């Protein structure tokens, strides 16, 4: 028991490792914020493309489907390896000379955009067709009906599942360590292999938990609020 506590919860090791892990963790936060912003924008664009009407738009729709299928199916760790190890070897100016951080954010964005596209799409489809019809009947164009009537309602509805995906993204920033980004996990690992003490992992774990709790509680709050609103409407 004493050895267990010493290996994972040593106060001495905590004081030694915390500054490094905390430093690394700030890189996780930077990756997370950047990737989340990019995911929000790209996923919305792709969800809209998937819903485009008409025969002329089918190549675009097909492309969007191929993309979401491919990146929802590929493990993040593979994408991270492919970008971080594969692209620098190509010697293409502007693509091969980027930092591990850059490749890491790209990998997160590619994979999570595929998930969030589906979330947005479900939201768009949940807005009843009569809303679009009412907007079009007033003379609004397809794009205007989407922008002012469909998307505002769709986005509101998907905020809870979307935040849920973001909790996943935050944790998965740890996987980007394989791309060579010195983030919290790497710092904990370095410490662990030097001192045979794993308190650093616990520290990193607790930091991740503290990061996701506010988001999880906020999601709960939104869901509860909506339930109350819907009950009030029904009554």
């Amino acid at each position, binding site marked *: 028991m004493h050895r267990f506590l010493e290996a994972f919860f040593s106060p001495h090791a905590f004081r030694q490792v915390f500054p490094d892990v905390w430093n690394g963790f700030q890189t996780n936060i930077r990756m997370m914020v950047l990737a989340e912003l990019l995911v929000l924008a790209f996923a919305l664009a792709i969800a809209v493309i998937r819903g485009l009407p008409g025969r002329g738009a089918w190549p675009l729709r097909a492309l969007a489907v191929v993309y979401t299928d491919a990146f929802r199916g590929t493990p993040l760790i593979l994408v991270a390896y492919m970008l971080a190890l594969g692209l620098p070897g190509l010697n293409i100016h502007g693509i091969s000379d980027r930092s591990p951080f850059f490749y890491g954010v790209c990998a997160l964005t590619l994979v999570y955009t595929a998930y969030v596209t589906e979330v947005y799409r479900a939201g768009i489809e949940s807005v009843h067709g*009569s*809303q679009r*019809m*009412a*907007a*079009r*009947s*007033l*003379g*609004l*164009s397809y794009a*205007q009906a989407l922008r*002012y*009537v469909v998307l*505002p*309602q769709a986005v*509101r509805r998907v905020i809870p599942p979307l935040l849920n995906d973001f909790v996943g993204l935050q944790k998965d920033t740890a996987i980007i360590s394989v791309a060579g980004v010195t983030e919290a996990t790497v710092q904990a690992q370095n410490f662990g292999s030097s001192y045979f003490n794993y308190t650093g992992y616990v520290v990193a774990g607790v930091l991740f938990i503290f990061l996701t709790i506010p988001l999880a509680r906020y999601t709960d709050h939104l869901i509860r609020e909506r339930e109350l609103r819907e009950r009030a*409407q029904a009554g």
Partner: protein
Amino acid sequence: MSAFVQLEGVTKRFGDNVVLKSVDLAVDEHQVVCLIGASGSGKSTLLRCVNLLEKVDEGRIFFDGKDLTNGKVDVNALRRNIGIVFQAYNLFPHMTVLQNVTLAPKKVLGHGRRKADERARQLLRRIGLEDKAEEYPDRLSGGQQQRVAIARALAMDPKLMLLDEITSALDPQLVSEVLNLVRGLTEEFGMTMIIATHEMSFAREVADQVCFLDEGVILEEGPPHQIFSAPRQPRTKEFLARVLAAGRM
């Protein structure tokens, strides 16, 4: 010389189901035409064809001298001139009453906020809901929501109004407030209207012309007193007898 709204041989299918069978109809300016008939007889589809919410399979529709069915017409421009009010109101739930009414004038007609707001408040005053301008639709009764939907359509200053069974989703005690408003519109503005309705006494009162639809065909048309008092077709008689029995007349 064609009428203000003219349908010639309009046919509409949903798959194998023929909903409108070669329908002819003429509506003059300032005229009110009521479409009556059982549910599924094609009344709503006919209205939706007129503002191209549904694509016509055969036949032609003229509005204000323009052929709507030749594929060259600017659909968005056309719809500015044709207002439609739906059975289920279809207000935008994420917008206040005022925002519902001003959205299209601002985005489609390019009106500034002040101009659009002023006009909208004027319309809301007309329908007796000026104090609800900042409320969201889910705080309003069905009758109030439907009146807002009418105001939203009127805000575009349409030349033609299509009313698609606008009282069918309302509690009986709320029907009259909506019908009173429509009656006012015909009297004050001389608005050209095509009205699909189950309210026979209302149709009898406001219509210049009543059309009885049966299985996608206009079986009988004429002035209201003739249709309601001396129908010629056995199917019309049957329908009116059923309506009478149901206490809707």
